[in-house]
């Protein structure tokens, strides 16, 4: 550790970090464009100038490592004037089209111009334009407006250093240089939308999100990507009950600053809902009903005598799975499996630039295994469903893609099935009881990633209609079945009960999870499955 003084604040930082990070540690923000903590330092944008005592010239904070005893001034007149000049240069050719720019509100050109720039420009000449590259579909997910580009090359470096796909390059040179792909081929790699995340301005924007909401209206809920077992840390952006986007949130151990397109574009799926109230099969088929009736029907089903077969879910939170364990795994009279779909391998780089690969397409298969559940693949699941005449409880109709198929409905023909689901499928059509299940953003709880880290996904929206999250359904069912369920009925209560009871989660607290980017499960069990 070395000690540096930044604007009068003394701070201890690790050797080798640059002045941007040291200043951040001291609570001082130094504006940056080309600098990104996950990418190679290039020192190109020149906005991060600071004054270091003993150095005759201003230095770029991004390319200057700390030295013990360094005294740094980020607020002197020299620094202020240099920043103003650089910002004026950056804006000299910028179209200033913020009112129609979708980046407005999360644009560093706006923010730093307000904070560190001047309120006017000396520029009266025609601004640079790139006809044909003003609304250019760079790839399936990214739209380019080259007029706004500030040549920071973050996007290029992302494709070189993180995705390693090398799709983007700077073409031409000087003031006319522009970002492009080889021969205009589409920018199509598994992480392509990250180039819009790293773009500090509105030059690259995500096609799926463009013009859906002004970001200052958007609510951002800290969550975890539901796409695979990597469990990328994300924010879910939503407005007035509609989910508009997923964006990666910094998590050095799991996803760095990145996420894959597969996970990112699951966002839209959260807006679909077919069931808002429980539905119970009566004489005239499935009929809307109330939760009380529904829970009574569920209890009846569970107490019918022959063993209850339960399909739990690797998409459910640790708390829901913990309750499922208490209700079904720890008591006689039920058989439980967790279906796991391997799917395609999704991977992402962490902050150390190591690949973190998913084991399957579930956000909590690791949690399910740690809780002691048996996992099954498609065949195992089908055999499980066909392997008896007793009632079946499916905790999530979308727990496995096969459950959405016609075969799944055929496999349960003639059996009484209760299924919690958000969307209609052949299976819900064949069910005896359908419980409206809360969506990912309507649920709060913890998840265990394949790297063995437990993270907290917050609830951003109240469940639509009368939908309930799985943990609540299970807690209510537990009461009906006479299982002791800790109160009050909140995810936190169940988490703390789980932490006290299930060893891998020992010593974890909700409070820590709420402030830290994931806590590793105990080492010896981190690599189960």
């Amino acid at each position, binding site marked *: 550790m070395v000690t540096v003084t930044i604007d009068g604040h003394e701070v201890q930082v690790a050797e080798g970090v640059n002045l941007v990070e040291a200043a951040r540690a001291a609570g001082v923000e130094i504006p940056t464009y080309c600098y990104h903590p996950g990418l190679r330092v290039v020192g190109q944008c020149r906005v991060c100038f600071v004054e270091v005592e003993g150095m005759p010239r201003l230095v770029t904070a991004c390319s200057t490592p700390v030295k013990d005893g360094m005294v740094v001034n980020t607020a002197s007149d020299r620094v202020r004037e240099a920043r103003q000049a650089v910002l004026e240069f950056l804006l000299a050719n910028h179209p200033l089209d913020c009112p129609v720019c979708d980046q407005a509100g999360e644009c560093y050109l706006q923010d730093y111009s307000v904070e560190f720039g001047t309120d006017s420009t000396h520029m009266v000449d025609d601004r640079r334009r790139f006809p044909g590259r003003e609304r250019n579909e760079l790839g399936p997910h990214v739209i380019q407006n080259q007029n706004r580009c500030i040549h920071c090359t973050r996007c290029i470096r992302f*494709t*070189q250093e993180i995705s390693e796909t090398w*799709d983007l*390059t*700077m073409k*031409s*040179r000087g003031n006319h240089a522009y970002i492009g792909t*080889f*021969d205009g081929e589409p920018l199509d790699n598994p992480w392509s939308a990250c180039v819009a995340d790293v773009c500090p301005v509105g030059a690259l924007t995500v096609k799926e999100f463009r013009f859906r909401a002004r970001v200052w209206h958007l609510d951002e809920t800290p969550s975890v990507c539901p796409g695979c077992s990597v469990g990328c840390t994300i924010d879910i952006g939503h407005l007035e009950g509609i989910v508009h986007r997923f964006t990666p949130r910094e998590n050095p151990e799991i996803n760095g600053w990145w996420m894959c397109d597969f996970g990112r574009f699951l966002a839209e799926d959260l807006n679909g809902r077919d069931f808002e109230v429980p539905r119970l099969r009566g004489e005239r088929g499935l009929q809307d009903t109330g939760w009380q009736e529904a829970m009574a029907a569920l209890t009846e089903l569970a107490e019918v005598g022959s063993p209850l077969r339960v399909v739990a879910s690797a998409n459910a939170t640790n708390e829901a799975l913990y309750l499922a364990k208490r209700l079904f795994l720890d008591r006689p009279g039920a058989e439980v499996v967790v279906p796991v779909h391997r799917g395609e391998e999704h991977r992402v780089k962490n902050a150390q630039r190591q690949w973190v690969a998913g084991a399957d397409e579930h956000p909590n298969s690791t949690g399910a295994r740690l809780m002691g559940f048996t996992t099954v693949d498609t065949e195992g699941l089908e055999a499980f469903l066909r392997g008896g005449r007793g009632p079946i409880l499916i905790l999530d109709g979308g727990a496995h893609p096969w459950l959405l198929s016609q075969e799944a409905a055929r496999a349960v023909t003639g059996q009484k099935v209760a299924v919690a689901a958000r969307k209609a499928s052949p299976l819900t059509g064949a069910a005896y009881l359908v419980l409206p299940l809360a969506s990912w953003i309507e649920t709060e709880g913890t998840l265990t990633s394949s790297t063995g880290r437990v993270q907290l996904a917050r609830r951003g929206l109240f469940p639509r209609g009368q939908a309930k999250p799985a943990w609540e359904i299970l807690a209510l069912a537990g009461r009906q079945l006479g299982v002791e369920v800790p109160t009050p009925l909140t995810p936190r209560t169940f988490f703390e009960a789980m932490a006290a009871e299930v060893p891998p989660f020992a010593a974890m607290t909700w409070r820590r999870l709420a402030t830290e980017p994931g806590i590793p499960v105990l080492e010896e069990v981190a690599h189960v499955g």
Partner: protein
Amino acid sequence: MSLARTQPLTIAPPEELLEVSFDDGMEEIIEEHLRHYPTRQAALLPVLWLCQERWGWLSAGVLRAVARRLELAPAFVEGVVTFYTMYQTAPPGKYLLQVCTTLSCALCGASGLLERLKEKLGIDPGETTPDGRFTLLGVQCLGACGEAPVIQVNNDYYTDMTTEKLDQLLDELP
């Protein structure tokens, strides 16, 4: 006395350069270049020169072949090619008339040469005559300021130019 000493460039038509491969002669030269450097990437500029000498310009197909040969990303190769002004990414004329327009040449009458060529050829800088014979370019300092004004035709410098010498040169080019 004859002035012209420049041979026309061979310009491959775009349809021949959609997909290219390197013949044995080119391969031999590429291998030689690769021996000069500890990395493959370092041979990029020489290999691009080789291709341009062979085909007259660098199509996307040529860039793809170069990228494959040197194990580089095509986008990276295109970024390099477009950084440098001498690599042609569209088919030029048989004669690249490159008029130096920077200060020393400009002080000595370069603009007269450029005007003369525009008038004679009926094209502006950056354009090619319809017969595909000449491409006119105004270029930056050619580094022969003591013999200004200077015109480079393909690889050859023509120094101490006058409009008369220019007329003679155009007449003499094969």
